[in-house]
Each structure stands twice: as C-alpha cells, then as structure tokens.
C-alpha cells in the first residue's frame, strides 16, 4: 500500500504558535465589527470590447501606456506597467527605423511603404493569432482563447496567460456550462465545471504554444503580403495627390511663383554695391557682377546674359586715366605673369620700372589724360613695345641666355581685357564707376531674372511631377497602369510567363502567337482592342493637359508662352536692352522656351507612339489574318516576296527598334524569287501558310540592300494601307482615333522618308524627311516585345514570390487551423461513461 503523501506531510508539519502581538486586543469588539476584516469586493471582470467601443479602448490603453512611461521614469511603476514599456520601445524603435529608411528612399511611394511596412508588421503580429487561432478555436471549442480580463487594479491581462493562475471566478457557471455544451461535455457528470475548466485550460495552453511556434513564420509573410496588397492603392492615392499638387501649381501660378523665389542673387548684388559704391568698375568687379547676375542660369543663357551685361557695363562714355597707379600695376602684373617662366633676377632686368613706364606715357602725352578705348589700345601697343625693347636689350647683353620675345609678348598682350596683365592694368583707372545709375539698371535686371527663375522653377516642378523621366510621375503611373494590364489582356498564362520571361526574343515569339490568335478570333479582337483603347483613353485624359494648347490661361503651354514672352519683351525694352538674352529665351531655334515645351512634348510623343504602335500592330495582324486592306501585297508582287514581306513586317512591328538590325532590313531573302506565282498569301488562324518562305534556296538566302521597292511596300503595308474596318469601327468612339491616323501618317513620312532609316536613300515618297534621329526614336516608341518582356519579368517575380511565401503562409494557416481539432482532448471520467 502506498503512503498517503499529503496526510504524511500534514501530520509531520511543525506546529507553531503565533506570538500574541497585541495584548490589549478586544476580541469581542473585533468580532462585532467584522466589516474591517472583510476583503474588498473584487472589481476584476472580463473585458469584452465591441467594435463601437474600440476607439475609446484604444485611447484608454494609450493613456495607460503614457502613465506607465511616466511612472517608470519616476521608478514607481509596477510589473504590469513596466511590461508596457517593451511595447512602447518596440513601436518607437520601429518608427525610428521607418523614419531613417524613408530618408534613403527617393519617391513618395517608397517612402510611404516604409511606414506601411512598419504598420503591416505590427498588424501581422496582431492579426495572425486572431485569424489562425482565436477565430477557429472559438468556432471549434466555443470560447475565446484570447479573452482578456481586467483585475481589481485596472490591469488588463490575457485570461489564459498564466495557466497556473486563471481567474475562473470571473466566469459564471452559466457561461462555463454553455461552453461545456458546445464542447460536448456530458451534462450529468460530477464536477462538470472543473472538468470544463481543465479542458479550456488545456486548449488555451495548446493554442498559446501553437501561437509561439507559428508566429515567427507567419508574421513576416503576412506583413509582406499586406505590403503587396497596399502598394497598388497607395500608389494610386499618392499619384493623385502629386497630380493635384502639380495642377495647383499652374492654377495658382501667380501665388505660387513667389514661393520659389530665390533672392540671394539680388541680396549679393546689394552687398557688392555697398562694398564698391562709386568705385571704378574694374574688370574683376565687372566679372563679379556678371557672375552674380547669371548664377543659377544654364550655361547657354548665362553666356547670352554676359554678352548683354558686357555691353551694359561698357558704359558709352567710359574713359580710362593713366595716373601714377597705372605704372605700378603694370610692373606688378607683368612680373606676376612672368614669374613662373623667368627667374626673378632676369625678370627685374627685362621688366621696365614704374618711372620708365610713366616717362613713356608722358612722352606720348597719354599720362593724366582721359583716354577712350581706342586711345587706350595705343597705350597697350606702346607698353608692349617698351617691354619688347627691354627684352631685346637683355638678349643683346646676354647672348648665352636668349629670351623668346614672341612667347613673352603673347603672354602679356594677346589676352582678353579681363585677363591680360597689361590691359588689366591700363583699364584699372576708369571713369566708369559703380554708381547709383549703374546699380539701378543692374537691380532691375537682377529682379527680372530672379522673377523669371522663380517662374521657371514652378514650371520645372510641374513638369517634374507630371512627366519627368522618373518613377511615380503622372505619366509614369499612367504608363504602368496600361502595361501592367497587358498580360491579362492578352491572356498570358503563368507557365507562359515563366517560359517567356528570360529575354525579348521569347517574349516576342509569345506575343506574336497571342496576337495571331487574337486577330483570328472576332470576339477576342473586339475585347482586346476595346480594352486597350479604354486604357489608352484613360492615360490620354491624364496627360492631355500637358500638351494641349488650349485657350485656357492655366494650361501649361499658355503659361510657358506668357512667362517667356513677357520676360523676353521686357528684356528687349530699350531701357533694359538685353537683346541677346531675349533671343536666347524666345528666339526661333533652340530657345529656352522651345526646350521647355519640347521636353514635355517629346516625353508624351514617346509614350503615345509606344501605345499606338501596339494598336497598329494589332491592326496589321488583323489585316493579314483577314487579308483585308492590304494593297501593298498587290497582284504584281510574287507570292514568295509577299511571304517575305509579311514575315518581316510581322517581326518588325513586334520587335523592331530604331537601332537593331530589323529596322535596317537585314533580312535573309531569296535573291531569285519565284516569278511565276503571283497569288495571294494564305492565312490560317492568323498565321501565314508559307509556300516559299521556308524552303531551301540554292546558294543560300542573302540580304538585298538595294531592293527599295521592298522597303517601300513594307512601310505602306504597315502605315499607309487603311486600317482594318473593324479597327476603325472600334476606335471610332475614342478620343484618340484621329491621333492614331496622324501617328501612322507621321511614321510613313518620318521613318519611310528618312535618309537612312532602313537603307540609305530608300525614300518612300521621294522627298527626304527632316525628322531627327531622336524624333525617329520617339516615333518608333517602345517595341511591344520589350514592353511585354519588362512587364512579364516583374509579374513573374511577384508571382514567384507569392507562390513561395503565399503557399507557405497558406500551408501554415491550414496546419494551425487543423491542429485545433486535436486540441483540448481529455478523457471523460469513467463514471460518466457508464
């Protein structure tokens, strides 16, 4: 028989008699006033927060956190309050990380995603146990494993946090029994409540353990998935904000530009004036003034301004006086210039002294007189000759160490006024002074240019937000919206994405197959063209205001016109007289105004050409598929050539770029095609059934660079033969139908009539186009295969990631939920089983 351990313990327990602490204790009194020995009524209760109460609870919890922090800093916090510091620290640290990483990101979306990442991480930590454990456990076991309670001291805790201390007294019999019923616990068993409690406790322990074991896997995955889901809407939202910000800039142009004003140049000019007031306008001072006024301008504009300033600062009646300071400066400047070339002992022999120069000017009656620029040239020549004489004299005396007279004089005389040592010295004492009238003129110029720079900065900011070659601009977002939809639009499957992602060639082949399928199916063609047209219309609506020269004074073009034209006419005014600057701003060719406008129009041309090219490609394939509107493939063309032409055009429309061999028509062809068969090509399911193209050719196929006709017909087939009637019908309701036709015409002339687009001198219409190679590049746009390749690659990466981690996340969720069915299993006592 085993000993009863508890009984043994109790019987062996030492008996201790408590000391009588209070000899005067009146036990009767104490017993008659029992209230003081009663414990306080417990105030602990279960916490059940409804959705409506959540904001209040969150606010209360935040207040509790704040109080905890305060008490911790004072050293009076309890354990529960101190525990809150960890949560606060984690959030503060997380915010610090997000804030730092935001500084390393360039665009609003990437910056915002740092905050989303942080929030999603905390969100994932909170969501996972709710979704994977709490919710299924409630359904399966009938109770909340993450039930919270508030103790008598107002501390909120998890009910099942400590399995050795669960405050069961907060849960009524009724509720426990209800849970027991849900769990299927027999209703007639003895100690039913205890049994249910044990079962609940066991379930909670198992769930808490499962939480700890799965959270590490689940949180990063869930967080990343949340980020993925948030990225697109956030991108749209931020894009709209940027677009509205840009629109606001133009709408309130007059109010906005003063905010962009940088008056530092004006302030520096004032300082310069105060330091040099009524001083001689020396070359150095003039240079300083020019430097100041042109600061912040591009090089070309700056040189135009300098040219104008040179004229303005030349001062019509400016004279130069040779007084006693000039010879001093002549000697000093000359020695300084030559000191690196000639040893100082020789230098002192060849450079005449101050007296000698003074005498020279006196002899020629130049000393002390006001000299004009022309007269001053005489002084320069005299000075040069005087130094030359001195050198020659030295050379005679020192035949063993001859000096190169020409070289020395070149260094001294043949220099700009602002740089040459002699001219600088002779110009140093001018009647041209930095006086108030000069300053008034400069002040006016500086103000005009400062205002212009501010206005230009607003326009630049607008262009940057709308159409810069940068991520997240309005144009970039609109473009991405269209291209991201293409794989779905063209029904490209996951396996096709996996196979075609490697390079453009594979993407091109896939795309060609898809287009051939689409164009051979009426319904599909309608769907694809309609959908594409709708997306292009949406993009067009977003970018149209950039290049629409509307009557509205708020349009970009109108404001550019007014800003540049206004400043230009002011600068041309006789009181300012800056014609070179005005010409640079608004002149006919290469003016700053044209640059400002063409940057935007070129960006839009590239975007539109790329999308219209895709539409044109669809249309071309459709025409081939149905053999309609293809007069280029006329009856006078051998079928073999027709097959070659269609094959080349199909490749060129999908893959051609301005630079690759395809557009140079390096195409291997039969030099001796069959000239007996002039029948039309045969097409099945969008693909040409080639009769000749695939056959072997004796001697091999070659490129035929002189076949001008072949090039001409290719251009006609692609761009000049009418659109397919179906395409015309589908595009008829779009806002850009006319633009597509314009695009085709422009391609036919700018590409077809370029001097050397495909082959030299192959001009389709006989007249050479003046389109630049950049224009040709923009007109070609992005090739559809490249467009697809880029999109497919990104899509593959996203899908691959989702497959890996989404799959893992789903598997984990499945295992966690299924595990619930094994939790809380307990053997029912035998008595009840009977």
């Amino acid at each position, binding site marked *: 028989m085993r000993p009863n351990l508890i009984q043994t313990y109790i019987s062996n327990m030492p008996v201790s008699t408590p000391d009588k602490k209070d000899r005067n204790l009146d036990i009767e009194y104490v017993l008659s006033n029992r209230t003081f020995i009663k414990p306080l009524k417990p105030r602990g209760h279960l916490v059940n927060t409804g959705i409506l109460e959540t904001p209040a609870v969150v606010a209360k919890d935040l207040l509790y956190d704040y109080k905890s922090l305060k008490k911790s800093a004072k050293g009076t916090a309890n354990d529960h309050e101190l525990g809150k510091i960890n949560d606060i620290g984690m959030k503060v640290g997380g915010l610090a990380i997000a804030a*730092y990483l935001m500084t390393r990101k360039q665009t609003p979306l990437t910056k915002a995603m740092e905050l989303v990442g942080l929030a999603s991480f905390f969100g994932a930590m909170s969501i996972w146990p709710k979704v994977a454990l709490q919710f299924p456990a409630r359904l399966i076991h009938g109770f909340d494993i993450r039930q919270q309670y508030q103790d008598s001291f107002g501390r909120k805790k998890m009910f099942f946090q400590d399995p050795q201390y669960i405050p069961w007294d907060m849960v009524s019999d009724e509720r426990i029994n209800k849970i027991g019923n849900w769990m299927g616990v027999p209703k007639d068993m003895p100690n039913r409540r205890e049994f249910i409690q044990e079962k609940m406790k066991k379930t909670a322990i198992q769930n808490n353990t499962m939480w700890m074991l799965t959270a590490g896997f689940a949180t990063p995955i869930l967080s990343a998935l949340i980020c993925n889901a948030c990225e697109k809407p956030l991108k749209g939202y931020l894009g709209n904000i940027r677009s509205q910000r840009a629109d606001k800039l133009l709408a309130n142009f007059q109010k906005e530009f003063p905010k962009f004003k940088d008056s530092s140049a004006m302030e520096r000019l004032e300082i310069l004036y105060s330091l040099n007031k009524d001083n001689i306008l020396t070359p150095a001072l003039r240079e300083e003034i020019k430097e100041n006024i042109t600061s912040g301008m591009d090089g070309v504009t700056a040189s135009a301004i300098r040219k104008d300033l040179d004229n303005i600062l030349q001062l019509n009646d400016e004279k130069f006086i040779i007084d006693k300071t000039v010879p001093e400066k002549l000697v000093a400047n000359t020695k300084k210039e030559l000191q690196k070339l000639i040893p100082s002992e020789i230098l002192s022999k060849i450079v005449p002294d101050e007296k000698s120069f003074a005498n020279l000017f006196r002899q020629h009656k130049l000393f002390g007189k006001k000299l004009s620029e022309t007269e001053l040239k005489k002084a320069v020549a005299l000075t040069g000759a005087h130094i030359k004489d001195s050198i020659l004299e030295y050379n005679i005396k020192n035949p063993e160490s001859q000096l190169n007279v020409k070289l020395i004089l070149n260094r001294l005389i043949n220099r700009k006024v602002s740089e040459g040592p002699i001219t600088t010295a002779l110009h140093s004492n001018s009647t041209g002074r930095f006086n108030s009238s000069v300053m008034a003129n400069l002040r006016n110029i500086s103000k005009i240019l400062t205002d212009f720079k501010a206005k230009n900065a607003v326009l630049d900011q607008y262009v940057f937000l709308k159409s810069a070659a940068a991520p997240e601009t309005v144009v970039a977002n609109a473009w991405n919206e269209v291209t991201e939809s293409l794989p779905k639009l063209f029904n490209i499957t996951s396996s096709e994405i996996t196979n075609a992602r490697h390079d453009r060639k594979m993407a091109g082949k896939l795309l060609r197959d898809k287009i051939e399928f689409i164009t051979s199916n009426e319904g599909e063609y309608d769907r694809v063209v309609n959908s594409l047209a709708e997306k292009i219309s949406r993009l067009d609506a977003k970018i149209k205001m950039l290049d629409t020269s509307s009557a509205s004074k708020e349009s970009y073009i109108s404001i550019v016109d007014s800003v540049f034209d206004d400043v230009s006419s002011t600068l041309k005014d006789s009181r300012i007289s800056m014609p070179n600057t005005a010409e640079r701003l608004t002149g006919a060719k290469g003016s700053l105004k044209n640059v400002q406008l063409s940057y935007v129009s070129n960006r839009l041309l590239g975007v539109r050409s790329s999308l219209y090219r895709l539409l044109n490609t669809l249309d071309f394939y459709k025409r081939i598929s149905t053999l309609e509107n293809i007069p280029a493939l006329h009856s006078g063309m051998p079928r073999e050539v027709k097959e070659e032409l269609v094959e080349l055009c199909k490749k060129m429309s999908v893959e051609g770029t301005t630079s690759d061999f395809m557009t140079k028509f390096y195409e291997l062809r039969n030099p001796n095609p069959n000239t007996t068969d002039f029948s039309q090509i045969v097409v099945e399911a969008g693909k040409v059934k080639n009769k000749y193209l695939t056959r072997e050719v004796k001697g091999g196929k070659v490129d035929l660079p002189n076949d001008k006709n072949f090039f001409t017909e290719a251009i006609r087939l692609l761009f000049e033969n009418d659109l397919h009637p179906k395409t015309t019908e589908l595009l008829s309701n779009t806002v850009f139908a006319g633009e597509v036709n314009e695009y085709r015409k422009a391609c036919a002339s700018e590409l077809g009539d370029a001097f050397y687009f495909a082959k030299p001198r192959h001009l389709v219409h006989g007249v050479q186009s003046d389109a630049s190679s950049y224009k040709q590049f923009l007109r070609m746009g992005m090739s559809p295969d490249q467009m697809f390749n880029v999109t497919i690659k990104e899509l593959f990466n996203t899908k691959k990631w989702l497959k890996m981690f989404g799959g893992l996340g789903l598997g984990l969720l499945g295992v966690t939920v299924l595990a619930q069915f094994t939790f809380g299993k307990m053997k029912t006592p035998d008595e009840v089983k009977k």
Partner: protein
Amino acid sequence: MILPVNNIDRKINFTSGNSEKKKLPYDKDTLLKNNFITRTRIGYEKFTNALTLYAAKGLKGDRNANFYEFLTMGTVPYIVGSLMLMSVFNSANKHFAPFARTKAGAIGRKMALGVLFYGILKSFTKSFVTQPVKWLTGVDTEVPYAKVNYELPDDVYDTDIMSIEYHKAYESKEFPRWDLFYKSEAHGETRNEYFDKVAKKIGLGDNLKDSDQEVKPLIKEIAVKTDMAKTLSSYLWAAAGVAYAFQSPWENYFNVATLKFWKGEKFLHSLKIFKDSAIESAKELIHGPKGAKGFAKHAGKAMIAVAALSSLAGIVNAVSSTNKPSKLDAGDVIQKDGKYVVN
C-alpha cells in the same frame, strides 16, 4: 499568524519510493553569478528548452505548463521570425532574371544584415545601461537565480516533479527575491552584507542599523528606472543597427561574402572586405550618403545620438534616485566625529 511554507530548508519530498531521481544542478532557489558563462549557459538552456521541452509540453496541453515556459517560448518567434524575414527578402531572388536578381539581392542582403544587427544590438546594448548602473550603485538588476520548481505529478508513479527555471532576482519589481540576498548568520556571514554594500555605494553610509530596510525601496526604484532605460534604449540602438546595415558600402562585402572558412584565401579576403565595409558604412551612416542634404544627411548621426542619449539619460535617471535618502535621521547622516563649521 500564518507562517510561510518553507519547503527548501525542510527538503520535503512529495514523491514516494526510492526510485532514481533526476540529478538537478540545484536543490533550492540559488542566486547565480552574473557572468558571461552563466548568461550563455542560461540562454542556451532556455532556448533549447523552448524549442523542445516547453514546446512539447505546451502542444500536449500539459497541466504543469506555466507562464515562465510561455514567456521563454517567446524567443522562438524572435529567432524564427528573424530567419524568416531574411528568407522573405532573399529566397525568391535566385529565380529572378539576372538584373532583377542583383537589385533584389542587394536589398535583400541589407535586410538580412539589418535583422542580424537589430538582434545583436538589441541584446548587447542593454548592458550600456545595466553595467554603469551596477558600477555606480552596486545594484545588478540583471543578476540571475535558479528557481527550483515543483510540478504536479502526472500519476502516482511520476517521481520527476522538479524542474529548474531561470529568473532574474529583480525580475518582479513588486516582489523582488530579497530572500536570496540575505546571508546566513548560522554560517558566520553578515546577514545584510549585500544591502550594506549597496548602502555604502549609494552614499547612505556604513553600519546602518537596518540597511536592508533602508536600501530596498531605493533598489526597487533603481531597478524600475534601469529596466525602462534598458528596454527603450535597446530598441533605439537596434534601430541604429538597422540603419547601419542599410549603408551602401556593405554591397562591397556582399559581392565577396563567404562563410566557407576552408577556402582560406577567399574567406580571409571576405573578412578583410567585411572590415573595410564596416568602417566605410559607419562613415556613411555618420556623414550621410553622397549628395544627401538636410535631414537625410544627418539622419544617421541623429539615430546614434538619440540612442546614446537614451542610454545616458537612463543611467542618470537611475542613479539620481540614489541621491535621496529615504528615512534616515540626522543621527545617521551627521558624522559625529567629523568637523563642522557654522557660519
């Protein structure tokens, strides 16, 4: 009067029979030395238990599973989550096209390094606060102890009912384990030796009548303040660690990184580049990346400064409490044999 049940001294055995007992390193609650070896051993034991014993007990729903085990298992999501986070940013990259792979790889590796630095700095920087507080006050808020735990037997034959838990003596600020700091007069030791030392260190003087009573409230205050500073500053240091990992010179290291130590030359080269990248990254963190302006230029500096200030302020705050005497009377404060001048 209710007397405490002290089962330590009496060594009560709840088990029956003389079956072979599991040999445990402690038979009663024992204060341990706070040194590197002990901390490492405790960390190792806790981590392995969290992955094995506690996880198994928890999944089984064992009635002896307790809050300590649940908290100890908290390290599992920390470690697994860190590895998972590294994996989320890196594992799929090998399937990407070369250019995308390179781009994603650079970001992913920085993320992984960030996770690593976060963990390292989060752990080690706690001592930036606790050690100075220990030096200045004599209160080691991190001192561990082994707690002997008696569990309920699974059945009458279950004799394995003892387990060891590792706690810190000041883990609970409301109920610190003061009992472990008292010395045994029966063994010829001074009962309040520990409290005397602390009292002296924090300036309460020598030979106090009841140093334990004087010092306990102050120790509590120090422990609370230290704990707060330790927690907050460690997160800020961890954030600085992530910022450090995101500096571009690390990319030089990623290009040559290898852990294959058996490939001597390559491994040594990788270590050298690691050192160079670490130095350059530190410079970039402090001075800002090339071309950065405004806040972006100074953000790294600010992060380090805030973290360092949080540690420093925490120490000052914790130590400042020692300046106020609690319930000392003038007799204890004024040294009777000292010389005083009254103006």
